[in-house]
């Protein structure tokens, strides 16, 4: 029995991979759904802050991610656009990552078409520029010199939505959906701290622990961490809007739940094997 347990502890990693694949695929295939319970936390803080913004406020939404992190961040983008556009909050979007432009555009056009919002009046996509933190600092003094045109090539000076927006300080909030660098830390340091603009955002689950310090000091008003954050936000947005389209994060929570349980099972098996071997070797001495 002891030898069997120790053999379990040396399971080939391919077996682990197969079981993980089943743990993720089966809940999705069987359309398992688990209730999402919203607790006090960074997601709710973010939602409440956006809800408190008055109609006509102007928000800068930065899509700082690429297709590899789309499964976690794109649902956040869609839910955020839904909330902002429903409240008639103007969205000026941009990207610090090259592929963020088209991913952002997908979210904006989908929600804009469903709600009848107009490009250049209710939202605009300025596009991508290289530079990261340096770019943010330049935008702090003059956006028009950094983005003279939007990503379609139209001059932003002629757009109704850009009326009165000359620098970062003219925005009521900045939201960054960030998968790495440049991303939320750059926005917090270069925009939030310098120009006192409320910063919100979304990030992958693996990065979320590093943003709790910003939340604690008030440098961020809230953030959405990973698929859970996206599912929370989808749930909160849908609770207020009957006709909000279904998101993709909520179904993913069932798969994530089963996957977490499988990982915990492996860890327990590994520890039982380890303790059994330790006991056997200790006894042999």
């Amino acid at each position, binding site marked *: 029995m002891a030898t069997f347990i120790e053999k379990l502890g040396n399971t080939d990693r391919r077996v682990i991979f197969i079981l993980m694949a089943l743990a993720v695929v089966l809940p999705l295939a069987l359309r398992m759904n688990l209730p999402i319970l919203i607790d006090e936390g960074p997601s709710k803080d973010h939602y409440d802050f956006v809800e408190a913004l008055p109609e006509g406020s102007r928000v800068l939404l930065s899509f700082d991610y690429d297709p590899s992190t789309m499964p976690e961040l794109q649902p956040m983008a869609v839910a955020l656009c839904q909330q902002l556009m429903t409240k008639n909050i103007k969205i000026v979007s941009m990207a610090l990552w090259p592929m963020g432009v088209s991913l952002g555009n997908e979210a904006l056009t989908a929600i804009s078409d469903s709600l009848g919002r107009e490009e250049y009046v209710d939202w605009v996509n300025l596009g991508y520029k290289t*530079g990261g933190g340096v770019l943010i600092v330049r935008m702090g003094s003059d956006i028009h010199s950094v983005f003279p045109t939007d990503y379609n090539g139209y001059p932003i000076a002629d757009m109704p939505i850009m009326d009165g927006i000359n620098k970062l300080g003219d925005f009521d909030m900045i939201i960054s959906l960030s998968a790495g660098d440049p991303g939320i830390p750059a926005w917090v340091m270069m925009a939030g701290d310098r120009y006192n603009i409320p910063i919100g955002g979304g990030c992958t689950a693996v990065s979320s622990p590093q943003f709790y310090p910003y939340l604690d000091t008030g440098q961020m008003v809230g953030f959405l961490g990973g698929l859970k954050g996206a599912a929370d936000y989808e749930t909160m947005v849908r609770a207020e809007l009957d006709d909000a389209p279904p998101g993709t994060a909520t179904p993913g929570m069932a798969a994530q739940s089963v996957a977490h349980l499988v990982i915990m099972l492996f860890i327990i098996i590994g520890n039982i094997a380890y303790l059994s071997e330790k006991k056997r070797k200790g006894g042999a001495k």
Partner: protein
Amino acid sequence: MITFVTGMIMILQFFVPATQTMGETIQEWFMIIASAAIFLGTINLIQVHMHKVRYKARNWKYSPVTLTGLAAMLVSGLFFGGIEQGGAFDYMFQQMVVPMGATMFSLLAFFVASAAFRAFRASNWRATLLLLSAFIVMLGRVPIGAMIWHKIPMVSEWIMQVPNLAGQRAVMIGAAMGGVATSLRMIFGIERSYLGGTD
């Protein structure tokens, strides 16, 4: 000398508002250099793979695949619709680049499982405490945690907001101190090995 001058200008413009334009100019130069550097990398990529193909180096058969992919995206982006939806570039981006990127990211799920299985051992009380915290946070991050016990998400959030936050701050402060010291060494020329070779 260049490092010293540019470093001092950037520090000066942070504290002396009247010199802000100098800092903004250097920032613009950085943006221009960063944009131009894209060509450097592309040229290097082409050179390395052409060399492999020409001399039939080991694994040279992968090189034409790389070069074809590069050429296809470059040509379609420049001449066939650019980033417009429905164009050839957009099609290849949506149907190839996006799924491939998501596939690579999804490998993490498997690697986390195998790394956790191999490395998470309760070898002493500290490791055991870490293990228990990991279990609580893993459960707290998914709906199943709340279904098992309604307080799990609260405990998980406490772990993230108190011990995790303390650890994150400590690492951030230490790394920032290291960054400051390294930057000062480089600006004042005490550290020059990043320029090439060693002292």
